[in-house]
């Protein structure tokens, strides 16, 4: 660190002279990204936030009005029909996002530790085989899983039949549908976590282990107190986006179960709908733009706040202000 700041010092003298020009160049370099981000993300976002405070739906398509916090109050009011849509969906969204991220990470980390054995000379072959699910576009593999998990024709049930296990209604029962979503997500997601963990394992400085060995640490101790914290430090910046991604992982749910099986108590969301797929359905199927927008605003506040704290904590996304 100290040496790099020393090396930068002469450069800073040069830069100081051309700050204005440099800044102009910076905006030139940034403009394509900023422009597209504004038109495609920011403007629609502002529009959606505005809609969340109106009664814009199929009945008020041209004549919608500002209704203040009404939509948000409805989401949290136990006597409002929207409450029974929102709260169970919110719970499952959290369960899914946390479950998918944690399970995928643990499995990936476990496989990385197993593969990172210096005696296992063929481990790169195993790694190439295990990475294959990542290399198939998720859209295709999730659709294929829908077929494989089909109760009557699916090969998973056919396979279980060989062992005398009766057919499971994978996508038709609330419990199994949720298990299926987590399973398919694990299948598609562990190679990423494995790759990240392997990279982190190999980045742990060998000197740390040597020093620990000299101090008389056993192998499990070295793993617990040296390897794990190092991996944690390196993989955390990638775990946060992964959690946020799963929170909005529309494809994983919608392409596998379509949000179903349906809840008998309300028509809007099924047992496996996460907030993202619920908002999607409310927009395209039920034309309840205001509800969808309100749900999205809350979704954004949750994910944004969590991510903000995590980023501040890891410092991975900050830029040193030199």
């Amino acid at each position: 660190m100290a040496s790099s700041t020393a090396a930068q010092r002469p450069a800073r003298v040069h830069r100081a002279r051309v700050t204005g020009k440099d800044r102009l160049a910076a905006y030139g370099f940034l403009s394509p990204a900023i422009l597209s981000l504004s038109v495609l993300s920011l403007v629609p976002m502002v529009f959606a936030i505005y809609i969340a405070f109106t009664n814009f739906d199929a009945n008020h398509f041209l004549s919608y009005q500002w209704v203040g916090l009404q939509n948000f109050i409805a989401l949290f009011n136990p006597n409002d029909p929207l409450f029974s849509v929102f709260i169970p969906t919110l719970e499952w969204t959290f369960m899914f996002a946390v479950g998918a991220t944690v399970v995928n990470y643990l499995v990936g980390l476990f496989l990385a530790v197993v593969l990172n054995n210096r005696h296992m000379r063929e481990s790169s072959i195993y790694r190439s085989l295990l990475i294959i699910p990542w290399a198939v576009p998720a859209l295709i593999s999730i659709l294929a899983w829908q077929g494989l998990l089909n109760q009557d024709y699916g090969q998973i049930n056919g396979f279980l039949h060989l062992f005398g296990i009766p057919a499971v209604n994978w996508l038709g029962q609330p419990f199994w549908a949720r298990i299926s979503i987590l399973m398919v997500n694990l299948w598609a997601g562990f190679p990423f976590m494995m790759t990240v963990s392997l990279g982190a394992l190999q980045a742990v400085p060998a000197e740390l282990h040597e020093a620990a060995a000299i101090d008389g640490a056993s192998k499990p101790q070295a793993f617990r107190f040296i390897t794990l914290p190092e991996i944690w430090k390196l993989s955390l910046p990638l775990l946060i986006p992964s959690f946020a991604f799963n929170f909005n992982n529309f494809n994983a749910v919608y392409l596998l179960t379509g949000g179903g099986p349906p809840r008998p108590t309300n028509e809007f969301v099924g047992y496996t709908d996460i907030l993202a797929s619920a908002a999607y359905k409310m927009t395209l199927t039920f034309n309840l733009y205001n509800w969808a927008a309100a749900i999205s605003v809350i979704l954004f506040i949750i994910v944004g706040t969590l991510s903000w704290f995590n980023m501040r904590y890891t410092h991975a996304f900050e830029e040193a202000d030199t």
Partner: protein
Amino acid sequence: MSQHVVGVEAQRAASRARVRTRRGIPRHEAVTLWISRVVIWVVIVLTLAPMWFVVEAAFNPTNAYFSLGLFPSHPSFGNFAYLFHQTNFLIWVKNSALVGFTVSLGQVLVTALAAFAFSRLRFWGRKYGLMVLIILQMFPNFLALAAIYTALAELNLLNELWVYMLILMGGSAFNIWLLKRFFDSVPKELDDAAFVDGATVWQRFSRIILPLARPMLIVIFIFTLMGSFSEYILAGTILETPNNYTLGLGMYGLISNQFAKNWGYFAAAALLSAVPLAVTFGLLQKYIASGLMGGVKG
């Protein structure tokens, strides 16, 4: 055998402590190694078996789900023939390839420009700008859908492949962050030297930083390519007529609600479209691993 040469007692003591196998691995490590291997083999079988089911279905002309032999009993190319003659499969592939490559190239360019600014230039908003952008992009993007759809309908631009591509080309804050981290790991002395020699900012970017970042550019290219093949929401909204369908859209239409009828065709299409991507991905594997970790180390 060596027991006769060396003292028997000493040898026994040594062997009690560290029994070695032929290749010189201590016994307990050899046990760990073999347990590890068995675990990995089981995981590999569990991971690849579902894919094999799909491959089998692709070559199974009877379209029956329950074919549980290791190979289909009467393999044929019937499903592939149907795909080429009775569906628009080739058009979907052409559209997806066009969209994938154009969008990925555009993304790489937009990302590289912005990442360079964040890594090397000084401007207002540099410190927290990227963090704010990443958080803003966590806003559910399909909500942009209503706004984008309305705007495109007003401008009469729906059902245009180039419009779809342009929208997908929008900057990705996460990619910018990945690439910026990589740029940061390139020693500043390199372009500072060029700067002293009178190179312009553009030359520093295009002649020095960009060539060095080639592995990471490849990673972003392949991630975007994969992402564009999995894009469903926008494609479904913007592209209306079948001759504009992308692979994902076409395959979704092929299979939704008619699994029993079209499973074999779907499997054949999945095989044909996944294999080239998987092979590309496999070839670039080492770049992907190092690209994801790159820069964290510093």
